[in-house]
């Protein structure tokens, strides 16, 4: 029993930290919210240290805990560390934004930490119940965060939409899980994996499993935000305060990816032939709807929301190329590619939404396309960073976005799905148009706002620079991150 608590140390530390924050925040004056902010960052740091500790202690080996409800493997550790980074980055970018709007409250910070806890539980889940618990913890926190700005009708509406659709998706997921339970008699993902192989040979049982699988994939698709379960994304991204959009658009993607890996790959790999076909449809739809609809947007947040949908469709290319005709020789490469894609996407997303946060200031929200006009005149360095981010999102070398696309396309081609790769590149061409339009606005157009860009604190500017340049640096040397992702998948 004692070992269990050591394996789960990061979650325990974070939970304790979040509770401490809630208590401490009671005694912090409104004008001193910076203290709560500092506590939150410190908690993140300590949690990261705890994760590294567990990682080093386990030597990267797979460990189960709490009667196999919980698993700690390299993938979980890596995704968790990325999630801390993403949350910490998002928080740092939005500190001034939140202070200006009196949103940097104890509630926000506590919700953020609990959301992170939910993500961590999802990443380490080894049972349907654990997955579900993590997912609900994450989702409930996010619903509340979207509605945080109580006076904004748009935010409230977005939160309602998010909540209703999210609840429906959770229901679908639960229903699917209960089918799986009915077929296999167990909720443990490892046990399910052992049984599905034999069960799927019997056609009645197979039909039963597929029935459950369809519901689970629907629930997953909603959480990943892929078409045709994407309707909430534009509204929520648009309606939420940009700082919250920044949070929603980054770390939860890692959690959704982890959930897909745990459920589909860890649990239902024997049904890969079936779910790969479903994912192929989702992927094509997402790339098409995401990229084409994004062109028509005049609001930056909505445009980036549709871009997210397209990117998650791309990521699915990796997930669906693992098993070819019962042969999983290429599986680690394909899943590694999907993981690489997700992490890279989170980095790009943090940069793009972060830039919107940085360009906003008290009484001004940078969210229309025209707000970026002539940015090169107003602040060449921000314009250059955003140029890097946009080219990376478009997948143009030498930025890392290209290697992300390359790895999933390579996985699809290896799996013999050349048609899918061609469809993907055609839609990424469509996508390139609206990313280029941003570059065009920044570089070719005259500014509509004459004032220089609002000066952010030095530290935030350095962070943004690191974020933008990381896309270039990882593009020139992508090997380490790719290797780590591959190792993580091999350690499953």
């Amino acid at each position, binding site marked *: 029993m004692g070992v269990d608590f050591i394996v789960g140390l990061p979650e325990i530390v974070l939970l304790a930290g979040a509770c401490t924050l809630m208590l401490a925040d009671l005694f912090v004056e409104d004008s001193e919210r910076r203290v709560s902010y500092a506590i939150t960052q410190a908690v993140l740091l300590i949690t990261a240290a705890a994760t590294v500790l567990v990682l080093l202690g386990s030597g990267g080996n797979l460990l189960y805990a709490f009667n196999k409800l919980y698993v700690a493997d390299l993938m979980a550790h890596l995704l968790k560390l990325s999630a801390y980074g993403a949350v910490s980055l998002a928080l740092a970018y939005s500190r001034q934004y939140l202070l200006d709007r009196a949103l940097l409250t104890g509630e926000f910070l506590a919700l953020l930490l609990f959301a992170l806890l939910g993500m961590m539980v999802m990443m380490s889940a080894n049972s349907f119940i654990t997955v579900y618990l993590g997912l609900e913890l994450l989702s409930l926190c996010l619903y509340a965060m979207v509605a945080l700005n109580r006076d904004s009708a748009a935010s409230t509406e977005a939160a309602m939409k998010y909540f209703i659709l999210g609840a429906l998706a959770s229901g679908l997921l639960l229903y699917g899980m209960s089918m799986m339970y009915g077929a296999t008699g167990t909720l443990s993902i490892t046990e399910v994996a052992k049984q599905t192989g034999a069960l799927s040979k019997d056609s009645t049982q197979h039909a039963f499993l597929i029935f459950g699988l369809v519901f689970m994939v629907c629930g997953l698709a909603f959480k990943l935000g892929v078409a045709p379960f994407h309707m909430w994304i534009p509204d929520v991204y648009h309606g939420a305060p940009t700082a919250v959009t920044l949070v929603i658009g980054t770390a939860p993607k890692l959690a959704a990816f982890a959930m897909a890996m745990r459920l589909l790959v860890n649990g239902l790999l024997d049904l890969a032939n079936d779910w790969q076909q479903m994912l192929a449809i989702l992927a094509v739809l997402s790339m098409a709807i995401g990229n084409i609809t994004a062109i028509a947007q005049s609001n930056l947040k909505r445009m980036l929301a549709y871009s997210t949908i397209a990117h998650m469709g791309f990521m699915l290319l990796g997930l669906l190329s693992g098993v070819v005709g019962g042969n999983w020789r290429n599986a680690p490469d394909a899943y590694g590619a999907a993981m690489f894609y997700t992490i890279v996407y989170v980095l790009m997303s943090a940069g793009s939404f972060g830039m919107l946060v940085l360009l906003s200031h008290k009484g001004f929200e940078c969210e229309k396309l025209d707000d970026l006009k002539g940015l090169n005149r107003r602040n060449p360095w921000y314009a250059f960073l955003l140029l890097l981010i946009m080219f990376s999102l478009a997948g143009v070398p030498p930025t890392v976005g290209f290697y992300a696309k390359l790895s999933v*396309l390579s996985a699809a081609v290896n799996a013999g799905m050349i048609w899918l790769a061609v469809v993907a590149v055609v839609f990424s061409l469509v996508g390139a148009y609206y990313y280029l339009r941003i570059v065009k606005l920044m570089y*070719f157009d005259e500014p509509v706002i004459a004032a220089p860009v609002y000066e952010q604190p030095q530290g935030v500017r350095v962070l943004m620079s690191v974020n933008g340049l990381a896309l270039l640096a990882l593009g020139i040397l992508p090997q380490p991150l790719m290797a780590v992702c591959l190792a993580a998948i091999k350690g499953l």
Partner: protein
Amino acid sequence: MLLSLAIWVPILAGLLALATGGDRNAPLQRQIALAGSIAGFLVTLPLYAGFSLSNPGMQFVEHRAWIPHFNVFYTLGVDGISMLFILLNSFTTILVVIAGWTVIQQRVAQYMGAFLLMSGLLNGVFCALDGLLFYVFFEATLIPMFVIIGVWGGANRVYAALKFFLYTLFGSLLMLVALLYLYDKSGGSFAIRDWWKLPLTLGSQLWLFFGLLFAFAVKVPMWPVHTWLPDAHVEAPTGGSVVLAAIMLKLGAYGFVRFTLPILPDASRELAWLMIALSLIAVVYIGLVALVQTDMKKLIAYSSISHMGFVTLGFFIFNSYGIEGALIQMISHGFVSAAMFLCVGVMYDRMHTRNIADYGGVVNTMPKFAALMMLFAMANCGLPATSGFVGEFMVIMGAIKVNFWLAFAAATTLVFGAAYTLWMYKRVIFGAVANEHVAALQDLNPRELVVLGLLAIAVLFMGVYPLPFTEVMHASVNDLLRHMALPKY
């Protein structure tokens, strides 16, 4: 090491220029750019001096691990086919920097930086021996060019920049799928030399051929995917037009010799009729289109397409005259088109119009300029003793070996080329002084004289004594033809 220097010296100089900040440091930025471009050219000279004429394979090879996860290597090397392009590119960069010296007054660092970055990236395309490395350089060149057209271009620059980018990106993305297919088929290797040996069935060769064709045909550009070029040229600043015409168009043609011919020889033979037909359409039809242009830059842009039709024609007749002639034509076109665009730039800087109708009698006020432009116009029509003649003559010789009527059709370019070039020249330069603006023109300043003079020397030298250019190609071209003759499957 030399090849790495050829890539990274201009890139570092470009970054240095960018790092110097705003326009108040403009003089310094220009000097950095000039020093960087000259240094970039100097490091490429040993490539020619140390080149072994008898070695058909890759020389100056560098081989380092880059992305072991994908088995990608940082492999550089040049053979007789690619070596001259690196020199040409580095030489052109110097001209571009000088040509933009006073014309560009706004965002000087970004202008100079973009051209230097592009120069390094273009060198990378010509010497990359790893498929993915090639692709990365090939694509990365789009970014600076997009910015150059969009920021310093003419009135319709945004449309032109987007069209340029999306056209070429579409082609490149299909090429990426083709490269990934080759990677898969070769058991996980991106080395171009490994792909040469791949036994591919005719069916898969044909698919790959079309995948690559889009990328290269858009870049060349071949009819009917050429429409981005006139737009891009007209809107680009002079330096952008020069690099676009002299170097970027060569990337597509280079792709044909480096990828399509050696990797897919059977498909190339099978589809040679198509390529020849498209090339002839470019030569004849686009030649006619050039004739009716009223904008000088557009006219030269169409003339470029027509000349590049000659290049693709030379490649797909599969003999050494054709391929060498096409390569020579590429280099010559690099000099001549650069010179023509610079000439238009010289006039545009003074008159701010490119309309042929706004000119007339320029020879009266700009005699030196008129003389130099005469030389380039003659080279553009392929007059003997200019560089334009050598390549066209060789390609026509090669074509005669295949089919007389093919050669006949190709040779019509000599007529059309002379027609549109000389007619434009006549209307702009000769005749009575058209208006008071022309009467007020100042002749070439020393800087312009240096740029055009250097190009004039190159054009004449190559026309009178082409041996230094052809002799480096022989071994590699013959090796390529031998390789293509081998059975593939």
